């Protein structure tokens, strides 16, 4: 308001009598232009100034830092997590959503929109804001912030509640007391989940170093840099920022070997280690909400977090890497190395080729593989061809579908090779499998 007032008296007298000259006219426009300039400078410079450089912390070795993470006993925390996933999938927009919802509709007739497994796969693409609150082993809450709505997953004692405020639907399941965060089995969401999964993979195929310090969510943190020693993997590097005080991983970044933006970037934007209010974890279904019990869904969907059946996997691939991709992706993170989840799979589960970062999972769908564009014909055919690359090798021929992290080779005889490795490594795996 200042500019108005300061010039008020002069303009009031001057302007009525005589018209200002062209120069004075132009001079007035300096004010809005200056405002724009100051605003632009503020937007551009303030983050740079606020980023007061890396904090000065005592030197620490990678082993000590990993130990710190392992010993971290953060029982209570609340904070906001921003997670961006950029797998480099073709942006199918409405088409992708249409395919996904079509599959969902046929798969699980009247499933609930508050079912956690359906909801959290949304995290597989784009940028999302999550809120996390933890109070001990028996009380956790994870909320996915959406436009004017929110999806909350609340674990309080025996109960696990999923609440979708948009459709006003409630999902209710039970967890064993003190089992600790059933929800976390589904999809890794907090930086800690990611970091633990990544550290499982640490062995002689991996180099782990401390790469300086950083400020995350206003806290001083060490940066742990995890790099594959092998070539052929699409994983470039994993950076984990670890809170210097508590040993809590605050930020997780996975950059692809091909360079460019991070594939996964999950970090706290705000965090507090104070005890969250008890009311945060209280939940009673609102009046009129549709409540779906877990048991009702089990028959249709199979248990959450259990290995995917072949059929489902195939459907997913046929869906041109629809949204469900996130689940496999989460598993992939659970460790190319550990592989125990994959190993425990019942018959029909995948077979594993290679070791460390170059692990490739093989599924035999027994089917025909992906129809080539020419077979399908028309626009859909061109669409299919644009998604994959044709490759040939000793194994025969097939199609490689690429993302920025996970690649899949589907051979013409219906075998599927999936891994965080590049095209050549997939072909090699396929050749060795023959």
């Amino acid at each position, binding site marked *: 308001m200042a500019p108005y007032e300061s010039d008020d008296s002069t303009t009031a007298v001057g302007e*009525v009598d005589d018209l200002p000259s062209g120069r004075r006219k132009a001079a007035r426009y300096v004010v809005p232009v200056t405002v724009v300039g100051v605003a632009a400078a503020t937007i551009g410079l303030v983050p740079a100034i606020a980023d007061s450089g890396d904090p000065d912390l005592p030197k620490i070795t990678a082993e000590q830092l990993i130990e710190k993470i392992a010993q971290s006993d953060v029982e209570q925390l609340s904070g906001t997590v921003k997670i961006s996933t950029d797998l480099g999938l073709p942006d199918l927009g409405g088409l992708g959503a249409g395919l996904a919802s079509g599959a969902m509709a046929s798969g699980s007739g009247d499933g609930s929109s508050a079912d956690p497994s359906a909801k959290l796969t949304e995290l597989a693409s784009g940028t999302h804001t999550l809120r996390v609150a933890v109070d001990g082993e028996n009380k956790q809450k994870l909320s996915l912030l959406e436009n004017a709505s*929110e999806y909350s997953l609340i674990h309080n004692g025996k109960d696990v509640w999923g609440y979708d405020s948009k459709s006003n639907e409630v999902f209710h399941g039970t967890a064993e007391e003190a089992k600790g965060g059933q929800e976390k089995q589904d999809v890794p969401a907090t930086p800690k989940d990611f970091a633990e999964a990544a550290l499982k993979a640490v062995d002689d195929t991996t180099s782990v170093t401390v790469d300086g310090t950083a400020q995350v969510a206003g806290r001083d943190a060490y940066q742990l840099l995890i790099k594959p020693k092998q070539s052929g993997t699409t994983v470039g590097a994993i950076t984990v920022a670890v809170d210097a005080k508590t040993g809590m991983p605050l930020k997780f970044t996975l950059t692809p070997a091909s360079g460019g933006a991070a594939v996964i970037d999950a970090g706290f934007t705000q965090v507090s280690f104070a005890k969250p209010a008890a*009311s945060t974890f*209280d939940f*009673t279904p609102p009046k009129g909400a549709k409540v779906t019990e877990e048991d009702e869904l089990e028959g249709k969907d199979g248990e959450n977090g259990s290995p995917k059946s072949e059929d489902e996997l195939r459907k997913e691939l046929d869906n041109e890497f629809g949204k469900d991709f996130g689940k496999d992706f989460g598993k992939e993170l659970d460790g190319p190395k550990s592989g125990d989840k994959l190993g425990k799979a019942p018959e029909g589960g995948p077979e594993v080729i290679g070791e460390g970062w170059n692990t490739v999972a093989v599924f035999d769908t027994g089917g025909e593989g992906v129809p080539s564009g020419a077979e399908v014909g028309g626009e859909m055919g061109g669409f299919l061809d644009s998604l994959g690359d044709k490759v040939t090798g000793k194994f025969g021929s097939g199609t490689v579908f690429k993302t920025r992290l996970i690649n899949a080779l589907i051979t013409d005889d219906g075998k599927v090779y999936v891994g965080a490795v590049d095209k050549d490594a997939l072909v090699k795996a396929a050749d060795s499998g023959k």
Partner: protein
Amino acid sequence: MSRAEVVRQGAAGEGTRKVSLLWTFGVLRSELLTTFRRWRTLALLAVLAAVPILVGIAVKIETSDGASMGGGGPQGGGPAFISQITNNGLFLVFTALAATLPFFLPMAIGVIAGDAIAGEANAGTLRYLLVAPAGRTRLLLTKYATTMAFCLVATLVVAISALTVGALLFPLGELTTISGTRISFAEGLGRALLIALVVAASLIGVAALGLFVSTLTNSGIAAMATTVGLLITVQILDQIPQLHALQPYFFSHYWLSFADLMREPVYWDDLVKNLGIQALYAAVFGSAAWARFTTKDITA
């Protein structure tokens, strides 16, 4: 317009240079009276008040057979909060604001703001206003204050109409926030009021833009059409994914962030961004309007 002239000239006649503060208040009061007595303004407010009534009746009819609203599919179509209305009438306030904020409210503001200067010029009353020793700056400030008052009144009209309809058609009581926690009805009312204020503040940017456009032309209709046209253009651009780098600077980008007040705890990030953007638009277009209006040749 004749009454407006009489009122204004009366006010101008009484005013002398020494009692300038009181005089400014007088101009503002007469400006408010002329604006809110216009049939056009009253019609706009009536349209805004009708929106929650229509939404409320539609939801009531839709759910009269016991079906729940919006529960039909996982997409849960319709404006935000609509699925909650049947359980708590207070949610009609939020739904109505979410339904009117993208278009009805800013359109009404565009009409009032676009008409502010250009309308006077069009009707030939602008030079009479400037004959009084108020100065153009003060007149402009008065016009802007009036437009902002209209923002607030328009939002409150929607909110109060929605609350009345909600209370008549649906039960009231404790409500569940979108985070799943429960708050008392009194706290819900407090949040509703806060949301109404935030919605009113969200319109500051459009009001400043409309006022600037209004100083560019002598045709009231042209100014209104341009403002509403800009509004629609920005809303469309805000939907184009390729422009995501620009979108945070659109005045309408964070409008729906008012819903964040219904989270527990409240998520302030976007709300603060929204208010910041509105302040920026007010500063830029307010000063641009000032630069234009104080140097303009008044021919009508």
